[in-house]
């Protein structure tokens, strides 16, 4: 279980740009749930993910994993149990290394990075079997540098790399936003099947309201550092894209946009 308790976070404190994003924000994410998070720009969606992963520090409050306080645990240590895919497809892979090298690197997460062979030649068959069903032709390009792949191919690879070792939590930061509609669909379906198969507790920030409605078992809408909407179970299933758009418009009018 992931838990944020009474989180407060202010950007640029003491300057004219001071913005208070979270004050006394709390959120509980049950084990095995798949939460979609929507909200306008600056509503605190990505900050929420960054706070969970430790990419940015909090001013106050606690972050807990399975009841254990990890507020002061370093970012890289938190990733021992967390997989993360970013919006930018080039954030999740190493461009000058080949597909095989990238996969071998990710495959070794949680183990020692010592002086044994880096490329995992024994697993080439497994890697090919993993890539072939995607229909992107990556299985025949294991020796090619990832930098020469398309954004969609890279993001697929990043998703596989983030989830190929045992993890408990998956953090998706608008991971389909930079992709064309068809590739976004492929990546989204792949995401869903991985989440189901590995029973990952997932937090997905997205601007695609349809994905937010279609996927996941809980839906959050963030606005000015607050969860203005939180639906799960039957309520979530009944929610439509139009409902979400309606609430979005209401909020915008309130803000005078």
């Amino acid at each position, binding site marked *: 279980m992931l838990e944020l308790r009474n989180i407060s976070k202010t950007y640029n404190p003491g300057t004219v740009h001071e913005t208070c994003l979270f004050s006394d924000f709390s959120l509980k994410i049950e084990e095995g749930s798949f939460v979609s998070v929507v909200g306008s720009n600056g509503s605190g969606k990505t900050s929420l993910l960054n706070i969970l992963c430790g990419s940015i520090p909090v001013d106050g409050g606690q972050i807990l994993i399975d009841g254990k306080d990890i507020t002061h645990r370093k970012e*890289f240590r938190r*990733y021992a149990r967390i997989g993360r895919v970013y919006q930018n497809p080039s954030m999740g892979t190493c461009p000058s290394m080949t597909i095989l090298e990238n996969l071998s690197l990710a495959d070794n997460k949680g183990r020692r990075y010592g002086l044994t062979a880096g490329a995992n030649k024994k697993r080439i068959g497994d890697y090919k079997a993993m890539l072939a069903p995607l229909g992107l032709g990556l299985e025949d390009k294991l020796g090619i540098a990832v930098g020469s792949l398309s954004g969609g191919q890279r993001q697929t690879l990043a998703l596989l790399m983030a989830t190929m070792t045992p993890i408990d939590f998956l953090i998706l930061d608008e991971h389909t936003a930079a992709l064309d509609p068809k590739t976004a669909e492929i990546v989204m379906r792949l995401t869903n099947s991985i989440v189901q198969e590995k029973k990952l507790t997932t937090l997905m920030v997205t601007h695609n309201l349809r994905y937010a409605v279609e996927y996941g078992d809980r839906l959050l809408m963030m606005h000015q550092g607050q969860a203005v909407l939180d639906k799960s179970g039957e309520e979530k299933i009944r929610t439509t894209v139009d409902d979400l758009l309606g609430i979005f418009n209401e909020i915008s009018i309130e803000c005078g946009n």
Partner: protein
Amino acid sequence: MDFAAVIDIVMGAVEQGLIYGILALGLLITYRILDFPDLTVDSSFPLGAAITAVLTVNGVNPLLSLLCAAAAGALAGLVTGLIHVRCHVLDLLSGIITMTGLYSINLRIAGRANLPFFASATLFKNPLTKSLPDWLAPYSTLVIILLIVLAAKLLLDAYLRTKAGFLLRAAGDNASVVTTLARDVGSVKIVGLMIANALVALAGAVMAQHQRTFDISMGTGTMVTGLASVIIGTNLFKSAGWMKSTTMVIIGSVLYKLCVSAAISCGLEAQDMKLVTAVLFLLILVAAQTQFKRKKVRIHA
């Protein structure tokens, strides 16, 4: 100038170029792989020289002294790494701090600013090389240097193929991947700096063995020479996909030294060496940039 003199100059330049090739291997790690402008090298190069000089004067086996020099270089890299990673000092400044401090340490190690060891058996002039047959004797220095450069290159190649090497390459390529693999990018950088400076100190030690002297000023311009070699090598052989970047920078280093020697033998004095080194480096930087620009235009066209 007669033919024999030209051959002599070329031989000397190739020997020096190969020695600086070891240095280029180190800068390949910091500059190309880690993208870290590491100025430590200007002092870790003479650090290696000072250590090998003192040890050789005291009768230690020259080969063993090279290993000690490399270990000391690794320590220098560790210091720069710790300053940068743990004290959060800017990368460029971290190197400058270590470089400045090392200057005094180098003087302390050698005991003075200039330490010749003409009388001692060196890596290149020892009972073994003296016993070589006449036809091989003139090339013994070159052969020994080649063996050391080759060993350094093959070791680095092998390291870059290991899991640790993959992590090092990833740290330079995309640090966020290393972080999400639950590894500390800072530690990876420190290891990279240690290996790089070990190579640089090794280069300094071999150079001291070659010149049979340590001089406190021999480190000035190390960064420039190393960078020039890396840039020449990697730009010249950019399209040669089969060639390893470690090979590229060693060839780059030899070519650079040949250019400097050519410039000097065109009537310049030995004291103009650093100026030639700097101006040539500038030319190479500009050339590499225009080449890059032209390519860009072609892509847009």
